[in-house]
């Protein structure tokens, strides 16, 4: 088309771009929080866990800001087609990220209760692997969203199964080894469950991305 230099809705598309970058920033911030949570668990670092808990309002702020801007664009600009899908997906993604950050807070609260307790290596390793996997899933989702590339989120389901598997293994392992302290068992199972939920959010975000790119809701 010859006359594309003339873009009638430039101002609106600028606002949409801003919203998109705001979500990318929120994604980076959420990944940071997940990484801090991983470190806090690895070292059973109560101070770091408290830091994560106290920083949660940053993510809440991102979420409410993105939601407000999104609603305003929907109300005032009547977006259609890929613009419409982008706004809806950005708002959904922000909600998932907020939940991911909340789960990190839950994990950190559990970590605070583990202070001074010795954790066996196999538990350490299992949880560490779950952290690594869920981080990888979130990172892939973010990269896919930045490049609008669906190939990157193709394997999310498989990765999620690995996490589910480790999560389930904790239950059976504790069955055999019931001499462990009940308190420890409960905390670890909770933490494992929280990470498993984080991975589920990554899978959901991958699906939203698919809708954004293809226009088909699964």
């Amino acid at each position, binding site marked *: *088309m010859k006359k594309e230099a003339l873009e009638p*809705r430039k101002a609106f598309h600028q606002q949409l771009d801003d919203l998109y970058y705001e979500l990318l920033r929120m994604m980076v911030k959420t990944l940071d929080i997940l990484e801090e949570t991983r470190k806090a668990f690895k070292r059973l670092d109560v101070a770091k866990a408290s830091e994560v808990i106290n920083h949660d309002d940053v993510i809440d702020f991102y979420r409410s800001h993105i939601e407000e801007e999104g609603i305003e664009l929907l109300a005032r600009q009547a977006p259609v087609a890929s613009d419409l*899908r982008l706004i809806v997906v950005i708002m959904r993604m922000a909600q998932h990220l907020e939940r991911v950050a909340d789960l990190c807070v839950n994990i950190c609260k559990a970590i605070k209760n583990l202070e001074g307790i010795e954790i066996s290596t196999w538990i350490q390793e299992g949880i560490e692997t779950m952290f690594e996997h869920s981080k990888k899933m979130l990172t892939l989702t973010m990269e896919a969203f930045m490049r609008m590339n669906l190939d990157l989120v193709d394997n999310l389901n498989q990765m999620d199964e690995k996490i589910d598997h480790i999560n389930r293994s904790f239950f059976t392992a504790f069955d055999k080894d019931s001499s462990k302290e009940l308190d420890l068992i409960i905390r670890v199972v909770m933490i494992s469950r929280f990470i498993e939920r984080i991975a589920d959010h990554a899978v959901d975000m991958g699906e939203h991305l698919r809708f954004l790119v293809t*226009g088909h809701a699964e």
Partner: protein
Amino acid sequence: MKSNLEVENLIVEKDKEVGKEMAKLGNKIEIRDLSMYYDSFKVLENITMSIPCRSIVALIGPSGCGKSSLLRCINRMNDLIPNSKVEGEILLDGENIYNPSCEVIELRRRVGMVFQKPNPFPKSVYDNVSFGPQVMGIDNKKEMDEIVEASLKKAALWDEVKDKLRTSALSLSGGQQQRLCIARALAVQPEVILFDEPCSALDPVATQKIEDLLIELKENYTIVIVTHNMQQAARISDITAFLLMEVQGEPGRLIEYSDTNKIFTNPSDYRTERYITGRFG
């Protein structure tokens, strides 16, 4: 309280009914391979589309893409433009309206038209509506009163003008005048109504009234509307046609023709996408 299963069954039954209703209707108009020329200039090329009975089809596209020309082909209004020429065919209930045997006057009774600017005759409200039926030979006063009342009611204007049927149509507001023009079109019992940007000269409230009216009229008539307002197409039409003249001087072509829902959430053609999202215009 109904159980979930009962509610589900109810929904399935309802869907079936709606499906049957739609299937029964079929196509009112079929445009086949239509090209149109003004002198040697080709305005439209190879337009093919089926317009279902009792639906609203919106024609959208940038200025000059030929959407008004296409609309005017449907009741042969272009015949009035010297040196205009049409190739291909338009079937109305299966009959080609460009057959030499087609009665153009009868065609225009069956396919009415409402224009961009309200254009009532400088006569009374009553005379505006009774004009068509009178030309058709209705001279019974009582019958005429009934036609006028029914037409004004269908056009959602009756309550506003019933006490001033004898005053000049020009004393009405713009929105009222446009509804009067719709009543005038309805008075001759058309089957199809063509609207050429019916709201572009109206304020937002008058526009909303006309849009509501079109949705009501869809129950009984087939409607084709040209609109510059994309959101209007999104709000009221069942099917949207996107026409585009890609290069200045080339004819307009039909780029995409699908469910309005599909066009405005996930269009198939990148040119539709770019146009409706305002990336070119």
